């Protein structure tokens, strides 16, 4: 039986009219809405990127955790809106990818901004090197009777392997355009763009039922394609797989790759981070210069610029992390690494799928938690989301740098060790917490892992760059909204109520004014004069700032909560620092610096030296050995990030999970810091 006859729809006049609906309807006015459907690893996303370039937006399908990537491209006679649907092995499964694809094709789900209707055309992307399986999805799509275009991607790889297909014959059988293309080399993309406007309702398709579908796909494959998998790279792939998933060698290779990754993130990213910091510093000075002293200037410089700037500094790290992850994913290595990690994390109740989310969390927990969507099992996913904030994110770095520097001044080797220790402590706490969660609130069997191992490929830097850009934009949007708002609130709390100048400072200013008339280096000035007028004025400002900082709302709050943190060894000032960190951890450094010295500072030597000399209200040193250790442990373990809690609540599907996360992490941090303070003290 030929596939042509298998449930071929007779080409009636009605069908012909339908066929031309896509091309004729509302020409020129409305864009043509096309969706990309296909198996995972068919190069669908590369094709999308190649067609749309940077002209695309990433958002979520409403009410789901699946990403909708939407772009526009100029069509033959009207613009085309292209939507990249998640890759699915079948449209009839229960997984969230399949459900989204199914609902979009049925017209009861659409990306934000698109009308809620079935798409005007479906572009089914097939992998030329693995057609029979792709034909299954094609068959399922054909059953929808929507105008269809078939794109046979990766044709360059297929040619290299001696697989030939007769796309004209396929076109004849299906009755809709078939284009061979390669998103990697760009071959056939123009033809595909043209074909999207000529989408036709197919005239052939499989009968109902899984058996019929498989049979249809097999028949079609043998009819259209020839050349069998004498894959020259098969043995090489076997060897590579064996090495990468080997219990010992695989672990060593994994460690090497991760070392390279973190080296790149913490080494290479420092340059753009310095530029961003410098840029914000410069902008702050300019704003202060233009607006002069005043509330508005203070808000812009002290609130908006320093708050958003402190967060944006981490943008290069985030982009770089996702760039490298995308590269690794493209090579096919990550799927193998997931199995290495599966073996390590399984005893803790996490699956190998959790590896990429937890890795991403080392840059920032927000993208990490969002990446957890890809975990198929609900309990695995929830456990991963709950423990992701334990991974030491880049916001903790400034705090680690400061405290480690205070603990081991002038001993870089020991500092590096302590720094690494913080990362290890965080990761271990995360694993143990996952185990606790899986034994209590998320009890249940964990699903054994199954994953396709994609063919090893040379990664596409273009795709990786676009992914990095995408992630960067998501992060920027967050910085522009949530973080901006928090920065402003924090600024207000730490600025008001304002207090006037203190008598001490006034006295110093008067002294400076008295000195001022004479030039500083005038012959009559005694050479042992300890203070120039500039020094005196600066000292006066510092006294005022320190005094003011003690009277603000946040300082009062600090005094109120001091008893809570007293067992950990924190005084009023440190309590404020810890409280302020709740908006963003890195704020700790600048808050402490403001309270101790009265000046904005960073983690540079000057601030550290000043903080090392900081005193409590009773005059004893603030950062003692025990207190520094206690703080370090507290910052490793504590949940101090409002945006993360918000994302946890959204992704886990309820505020309950955010509260569990907050409660557990706070408890652990408090107990840990208390224990360390008592032992070290």
């Amino acid at each position, binding site marked *: 039986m030929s596939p042509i006859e298998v449930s071929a729809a007779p080409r009636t006049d009605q069908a012909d009219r339908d066929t031309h609906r896509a091309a004729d309807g509302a020409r020129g006015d409305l864009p043509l809405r096309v969706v990309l459907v296909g198996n995972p690893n068919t190069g669908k996303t590369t094709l999308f990127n190649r067609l749309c370039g940077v002209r695309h937006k990433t958002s979520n399908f409403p009410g789901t955790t699946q990403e909708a990537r939407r772009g526009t491209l100029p069509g033959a006679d009207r613009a085309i809106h292209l939507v990249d649907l998640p890759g699915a092995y079948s449209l009839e499964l229960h997984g969230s990818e399949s459900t989204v694809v199914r609902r979009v094709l049925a017209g009861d789900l659409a990306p934000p901004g698109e009308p809620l209707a079935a798409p005007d055309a479906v572009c089914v992307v097939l992998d030329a090197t*693995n057609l*029979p*399986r792709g034909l299954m999805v094609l068959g399922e799509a054909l059953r929808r009777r929507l105008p269809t275009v078939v794109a046979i991607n990766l044709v360059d790889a297929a040619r290299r392997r001696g*697989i030939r297909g007769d796309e004209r014959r396929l076109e004849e059988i299906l009755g809709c355009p078939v284009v061979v293309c390669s998103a990697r080399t760009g071959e056939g993309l123009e033809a595909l763009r043209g074909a999207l406007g000529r989408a036709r309702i197919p005239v052939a398709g499989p009968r109902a039922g899984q058996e019929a579908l498989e049979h249809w796909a097999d028949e079609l494959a043998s009819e259209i394609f020839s050349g069998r998998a004498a894959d020259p790279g098969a043995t090489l792939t076997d060897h590579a797989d064996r090495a990468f998933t080997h219990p010992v060698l695989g672990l060593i290779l994994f460690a090497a790759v991760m070392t390279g990754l973190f080296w790149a993130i913490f080494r290479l990213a420092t340059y753009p981070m310095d530029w961003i910091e410098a840029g914000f510093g410069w902008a702050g000075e300019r704003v202060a210069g233009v607006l002069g002293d005043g509330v508005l200037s203070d808000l812009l410089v002290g609130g908006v610029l320093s708050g958003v700037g402190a967060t944006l500094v981490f943008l290069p790290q985030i982009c770089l992390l996702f760039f490298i992850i995308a590269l690794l994913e493209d090579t096919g290595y990550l799927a193998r690494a997931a199995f290495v990690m599966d073996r390590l994390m399984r005893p803790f109740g996490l699956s190998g799928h959790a590896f990429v989310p937890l890795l991403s969390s080392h840059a920032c927990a927000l993208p990490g938690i969002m990446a957890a969507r890809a975990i198929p099992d609900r309990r695995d996913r929830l456990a991963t989301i709950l423990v992701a904030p334990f991974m030491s994110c880049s916001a903790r770095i400034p705090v680690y740098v400061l405290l480690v520097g205070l603990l081991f001044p002038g001993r870089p080797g020991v500092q590096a060790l302590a720094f690494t220790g913080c990362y290890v402590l965080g990761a271990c706490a995360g694993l143990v917490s996952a185990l606790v969660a899986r034994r209590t609130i998320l009890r249940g069997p964990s699903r054994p892992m*199954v994953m*396709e191992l994609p063919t090893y490929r040379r990664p596409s830097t273009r795709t990786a760059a676009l992914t990095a850009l995408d992630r960067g934009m998501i992060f920027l949007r967050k910085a522009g909204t949530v973080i901006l708002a928090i920065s402003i609130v924090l600024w207000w709390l730490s600025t008001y109520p304002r207090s006037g100048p203190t008598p001490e400072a006034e006295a110093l200013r008067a002294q400076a004014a008295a000195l001022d008339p004479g030039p500083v280096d005038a012959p009559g000035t005694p050479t042992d004069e300890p203070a120039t007028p500039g020094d005196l004025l600066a000292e006066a400002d510092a006294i005022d700032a320190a005094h003011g900082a003690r009277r603000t709302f946040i300082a009062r709050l600090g005094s109120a909560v001091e008893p809570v943190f007293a067992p950990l060894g924190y005084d009023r000032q440190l309590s404020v620092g810890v409280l302020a960190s709740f908006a963003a951890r890195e704020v700790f450094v600048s808050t402490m610096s403001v309270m101790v010295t009265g000046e904005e500072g960073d983690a540079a030597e000057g601030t550290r030296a000043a903080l090392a000399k900081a005193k409590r209200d009773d005059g004893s040193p603030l950062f003692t050995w025990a207190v520094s250790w206690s703080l370090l442990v507290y910052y490793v373990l504590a949940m101090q990030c409002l945006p993360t809690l918000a994302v946890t609540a959204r992704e886990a599907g309820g505020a309950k999970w955010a509260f569990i996360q907050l409660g557990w992490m706070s408890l652990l941090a408090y107990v840990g810091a208390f224990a360390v303070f008592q032992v070290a003290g």
Partner: protein
Amino acid sequence: MTSRCPWARTALDIAYHDTEWGVPSRDERHLFEMICLEGAQAGLSWSTILAKRENYRRLFADFEPAKVAHFTPARVERLLSDPGIVRHRGKIEGCIANARAVRAFRTANPEPGAFASMLWAFVGGAARSEPRPTMKHVPSVTPESTAMSRALRKLGFTFVGPTTCYAFMQAVGMVNDHLDTCPRKRACGGGSRGAGGKNPGAGDLHCEPVSFGIPSRRSCEGCSRMVIPDSEVCCAGLSPGTPRGRAVSVTTLLRGQCAVLVETDLEPGEAAMLRAMGLRPRVRLKLCQLGEPCIVEVCCGPGVGSRIALHRALAERVRVAPLEPGGAGT
């Protein structure tokens, strides 16, 4: 090269391995003894149990179910103070519960040999022998042992988990798990020392291979009794040229060996997922890597096919009909 299975190390082990382990047994007293001993072993080494075996026989009335069923609580207390056996109240009371379950089963099924037949039905009535190149290829649980465990629990047996049941199946020769290199592999083969040995080919696939392209669910007349509980091996169609053989777990293949997929014994959602990924009946696959994970290459037509990595627990539940070892196929 031939050598004894590596687990047999002590003199007791060796005697047991060479004379008893893997020899098909239909003696109901012996079957009951092995159920109880495998249950007593749980968490301990088998050598420990072998060392205490004579004490067990003496204290448990030579494992006559009818006698053990009458043990009183006072007798349990006495057994608990005897250092000759494993003094675990649960395990001792378990043996008595098992004896009572046998008694109840016999009351409901009075024909002689019914208890043995019931147990042997889980392997289709005849001993099964699958290639076991190394200890890595020997499973600890199979779908059949899981089914047996479930059925025995329903009958009132205790200390009969799927692992215990599989160890029992090995011990009484329902499965021949001697390694291929062990001389006992051949000796235990398909023979039967008990009464009423059934047709020796009963474990084979007894469907004619069906041709490629014809719907695979062809019914097999008269074979419904032989269907393995929870599986349908006898009803699966195979592609032409497939040698007739038993459906085995994919983990028993050798590296590089090709096979034809018969079925997956998984919960529906998981099975549908694997099927969509290309692991569907009648598809040809090659085992690329054995271990954790198992990697199979699926070729369902022209093209390089897809490589799918499976957690070992899943791979054990994918059943295939092996083709020639190392053969690349057509």
